[in-house]
């Protein structure tokens, strides 16, 4: 049995050792935002917040999350009350296919929590673990800067 907090709610699961947090989130927990991209910590599609820090859900075993706090995009904001980043990504139309965006939002949220006014280099560094094939990088950078401005306002 593993218990942890997911988007503020307590969760108890009984999964075998070979199940990952990503399997749990997309399977029994029914979430769609954490996405499978590589299973090897190389693309960032599955990124979630683990006690506030970005972590690859594809590489976390259930043991590793026992007693921890997990936040996914579903926990960042809602349609009615979006996180500043979600609103900023819409405002900048920062995406094409959108498959990578959940992970991007997670790392961006962690960045802004640690550094409310990141410059472009800091943003690029924070987003380095994330791959985007559609070429939305510059829009994503602009969206993160916009969110930072709006959170400071």
């Amino acid at each position: 049995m593993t218990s942890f907090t997911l988007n503020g709610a307590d969760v108890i699961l009984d999964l075998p050792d070979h199940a990952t947090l990503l399997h749990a989130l997309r399977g029994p927990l029914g979430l769609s935002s954490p996405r499978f991209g590589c299973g090897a910590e190389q693309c960032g599609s599955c990124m979630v917040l683990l006690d506030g820090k970005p972590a690859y859900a594809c590489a976390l075993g259930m043991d590793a999350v026992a007693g921890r706090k997990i936040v996914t995009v579903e926990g960042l904001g809602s349609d009615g009350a979006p996180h500043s980043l979600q609103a900023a990504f819409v405002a900048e139309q920062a995406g094409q296919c959108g498959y990578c965006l959940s992970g991007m939002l997670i790392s961006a949220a962690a960045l802004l929590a640690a550094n409310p006014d990141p410059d472009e280099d800091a943003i690029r560094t924070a987003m380095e673990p994330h791959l985007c094939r559609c070429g939305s990088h510059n829009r994503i950078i602009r969206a993160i800067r916009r969110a930072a401005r709006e959170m400071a306002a």
Partner: protein
Amino acid sequence: MSHGFGAALKVDDGKPRLPGSLHLNRRLSQWLHVRADGVVEVKPGKVELGQGILTALAQIAADELDVAPERIRIISVVTPDSPDEAVTSGSLSVQDSGSAIRHASADARRIFLSVAAQRSGVAFEAVTVTDGDFIGPHGKIGSYWQFGDAGLLEVEASPEARAKPMEARRLVGISAPRRDLPGKLHGAPAYVHDLRLPGMLHARIIRPNARGAVLEALADGPLPGDARLVRDGNFLAVLASTEWDAEAAATRIATRAQWQEAVTLPEQAQLADWLRDAATRGERKVTEERDADIPAAVHRLKRSFHRPYLAHASIGPSCAVARFDGDRVEVFSHTQGPYNLRTDIAKTLRCAPEKVIVRHMEGAGCYGHNGADDVALEAVLIARAAEGKPVRLLWSRADELGWAPFSPAMLVDIEASAAADGSLLGWHAEVISNGHSGRPGRSPVPTLLAASQLAEPFPVQPSINPPLAAGGGAERNAIPGYRIPKLHVATTRLLDMPIRTSALRGLGATLNVWAVESVMDEMAALVGEDPLTYRLRHLDDARGRAVLEKVAGMAGWQGRETREGFGFGIAYARYKNTGAYAAVIAEVEARERIFCRRLWIAGDCGEVVNPDGAANQLEGGAIHGASIALVEEVRFDRQRITSDSWESFPILRFSEVPKVDVALINRPEAPFLGAGEASLAPTIAAIAGGIHAALGARPRQLPFSAENIAKAG
């Protein structure tokens, strides 16, 4: 019947010409359904690939019908109900589908309005439409919704219908936000990957450990949970109730399988030699021939250019869900061509196409013929063993980078000659490549991966090139857009196909545009002329000149600084020589390797439906091009593809991605030209020019790695 290369290829069937794909799908009800509850269903045959096409098509329909965009509901493609628009490819979606929907909507508006006018006794000309309400001189006389579900659209489209004049358009030409983005940013299910059906099982594939390997033995042993093996010849898969058990079982079975390997791949280090050798057994065709009496040349250049195999490398691996109901199978797929996929699944199962229902759902971004079709057939094959339960098959990263079709390695030899003042006189180009299309639905036998691995296998056919009228494949953009009196361009399609090849964004243009532009740069240098000036004086097409002049202004080309280690390059192409125009300037920094720091793009996509969407496509295509230019290369040994992870097949990351400025020259009076592919090849060419400006070397081989530049001339 669909020819499968997009409706932009004109079909002469004697019927009155209708715009775009409406010509082959002529009933209005195939495209539009007006509902009594105030919703208009629009049913394109093109699919969302991440390019934002559904947003653009909704704008076109809403504008032409005069309804609020919120009333438009786009119905994703499902066979056999949706119009057959063949494949969503070639930057043709707005041309094919947008033109059809515009005309169908205009015709629908006319039909509804006529009925309302007749019933109310108001003259047709006196009625206007406001968000679907029909307004006469004395107020509302009716609405679309009043006649919704009434079957008024069960007619053939009239060739006489006229779309609104350009100045009356309100929703086309504005940057409407993407309809799909908010959901995707809130974790809503969006992709076929997110489909969850009751009782759904999970599957994974166990690939042969070499290309063409034959399964010799498979040791028995326990599998986790309820996982079980599904096998048909060399096609091996596992099926389990959970993803974790399916994955763990696939890993275990891989260690128990013994494969008889074969040496089937060329020596990568001698790939260019292999291409030349295979060309002696290939099929050579003259692509274009122009004869002229030309004076004796003063300047001559003979150059060769080479590129490796390229991978699609979508961020999400291919995925499909399939379910049998008796002898009928339904498959949820992110295919680009639902009808073509249906054809090849039916051929593989040896059943009638009507027994196969393909439902399109989005996948991760698609840049050509990737694993989407292959995974769909595999899901179907596995679902045969699932007793009617739905089966979700997800490819691994190694499946995606190692087994999806690749864009073929290519070689082009160019000989160009010019007069003393640099004026081009002659041009001879020989393109060598495997075919750029192995898409399903076009060959007598299925082209899908698993079809050749079954116990009763189908033979693998060498891939083909789309006809030049559809833009060509290997020969795409091999004919320079510049004024050259004497010209001979030929293309040799290889019939040996050690690595399965198919379409990737740009097809042959990725190499041909760079090759042409590199020769232009070098010829300009021979006569001491600026690369921009040299291009402009050989370019008769005013729209081509306009994008070059525009981009030069944006980047300050004439006043560009010379900085140690930096260089600027400029390049131009009209995609397929018939599509969108793009000119690109790249700023390159040469350090221990090459970085592209900035890109400026000027594009002319004809009439622009959604300027921000088009700019997004041009920018994304350019970053894709920069990634191909600098780092991308499929690697292999003699048995297998070895670049099957993001470490071994890197793409540009945030720290390496250039800043991009895009300007569009909107031509609302001109036909749609597409946007998705126009900037990619010119970006590669501009980066090559920048490398020469920074280092004095002209690269001859992609990617522009330190190693390949060291071989440069």
